[in-house]
């Protein structure tokens, strides 16, 4: 653990939902601290409340108990100046072009049209979307859509980037390439990333920290710090050992979730 103060603090957070078969506890007493500049991955079986936790950090879901602090201040609602979210299926506005989608957050913040257009246009280059500014989402591939969605989040210039299985809907090859690309973006922008995934590969390849969650009700079962240099080789003996360790943790929870 480093001495830097944590940028994100989650303390004893519990969340229950009302389902048709009665109350369901989605999260139980979850605590986690993430320091500034970290790439923290939440991994765990389906329905373990990863997305709920992310929603809370984004201010879209309120906890029943416990509290969440971002930059020392409690989360009371969406705060796009500090926290930007990338959703699982891009969630682009189909009536807006790629450029206009990237501009969306700045538009809501009242940034003058010319300035936000320039910010968005400057982002398209590193996103690999230079020639696609005027394209509508239906004209873009899955990977491109997700990059537009990431551009929309980056345009906010928030310190924190929340990513809810951003590559979950992509094919394996695109996924790997998008991971490499994201790593590059992260290292250049120095954002703090909270990344939800099902993929062991993504967790090991990208993160400085991996938090394994239990089957419902979700708790933090284990948190590993990963110190290997980037870019990482998945074949190194250290990685192979870590992968085995992580898998055994997740396997147990996934089995419980299947029951």
């Amino acid at each position: 653990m480093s001495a830097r103060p944590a940028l994100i603090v989650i303390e004893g957070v519990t969340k229950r939902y009302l389902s048709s078969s009665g109350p369901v506890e989605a999260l139980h007493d979850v605590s986690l601290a993430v320091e500034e500049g970290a790439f923290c991955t939440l991994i765990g079986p389906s329905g373990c409340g990863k997305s709920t936790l992310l929603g809370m950090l984004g201010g879209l879901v309120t906890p029943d108990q416990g509290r969440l602090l971002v930059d020392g201040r409690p989360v009371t609602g969406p705060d796009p100046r500090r926290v930007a979210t990338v959703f699982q299926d891009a969630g682009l506005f189909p009536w807006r072009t790629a450029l206009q989608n990237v501009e969306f957050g700045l538009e809501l913040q009242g940034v003058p049209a010319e300035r936000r257009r320039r910010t968005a246009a400057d982002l398209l280059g590193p996103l690999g979307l230079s020639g696609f500014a005027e394209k509508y989402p239906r004209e873009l591939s899955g990977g491109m859509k997700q990059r537009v969605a990431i551009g929309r989040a980056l345009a906010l210039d928030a310190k924190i980037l929340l990513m809810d299985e951003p590559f979950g809907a992509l094919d394996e090859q695109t996924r790997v390439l998008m991971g490499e690309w994201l790593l590059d973006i992260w290292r250049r922008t120095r954002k703090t990333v909270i990344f939800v995934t099902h993929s062991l590969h993504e967790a090991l390849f990208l993160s400085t920290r991996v938090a394994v969650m239990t089957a419902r009700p979700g708790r933090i079962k284990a948190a590993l710090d990963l110190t290997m240099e980037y870019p990482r080789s998945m074949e190194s003996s250290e990685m192979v050992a870590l992968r085995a360790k992580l898998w055994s943790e997740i396997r147990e929870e996934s089995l419980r979730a299947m029951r």
Partner: protein
Amino acid sequence: MTLPVVGLRLALLALCLALWEVAGRTMNPLLGVPPSAVVPALRDLLLLRSYPDLLSSLALTVREIATAYALAVAAGLGCGFMLGMHRLVGRAWGPMLAALYAVPAVVWYPSLMLFFGLDAASKIAFGFLLGFFPIALAVLAGIRQVNPQLVVVARAYGAGTVTVFRRVMLPAMLFTLVGGLRTGLALCVIGVIVGEILGSKAGMGALINHAYGLLRTGDYVALVLVTLTLVVGSDVLASLLEHRARRWTE
């Protein structure tokens, strides 16, 4: 539009007119009116010779349509959004609205005449009745079309209720909504004119009734043509509105 499209259109029009001319000439002249006979009738009508009160009748019908449509839009949007935004209210009353729409509206017309009399009010009421449903139902369908994930995205990016409505819901439902508004206008026009034909003392429908009743078939066809122009004109207006709306959301 490309030249072949225009050409084909004109060709079909010419064919129809030719068939009409042939058919009109072989029929009893009291019933069949070939285009060649319509032209002088139309001239007399437009020069206010056959029906001196054409302009005031036209103005009355347009006024009735405008009033009926304004009421239908206001009530349709109001009802639609009320049912669409409140889940419970929508679940309770939405199906009733749809069921009511399925009733052939003409069955209400006699009672509308009883309530509102033979003057403009009953025509406005009937036009309203026809125009209201497609607008209200289009709002309901439009709201159902909004992808809830986009609402979540907008909220995460700092949008409040009004912004969500303006930036997400309206653009997402725009096509359905404008389609409903267009259908609503067309039905308002039909409602008012049918209302006038079924029983009135003034307006285009009354003139049509008069010409038809006296077997002044040439005048009758000329009046129908003028009314047709009115209907087509209203649809052109609606399509302008559609373009405006599309530009506004972008």
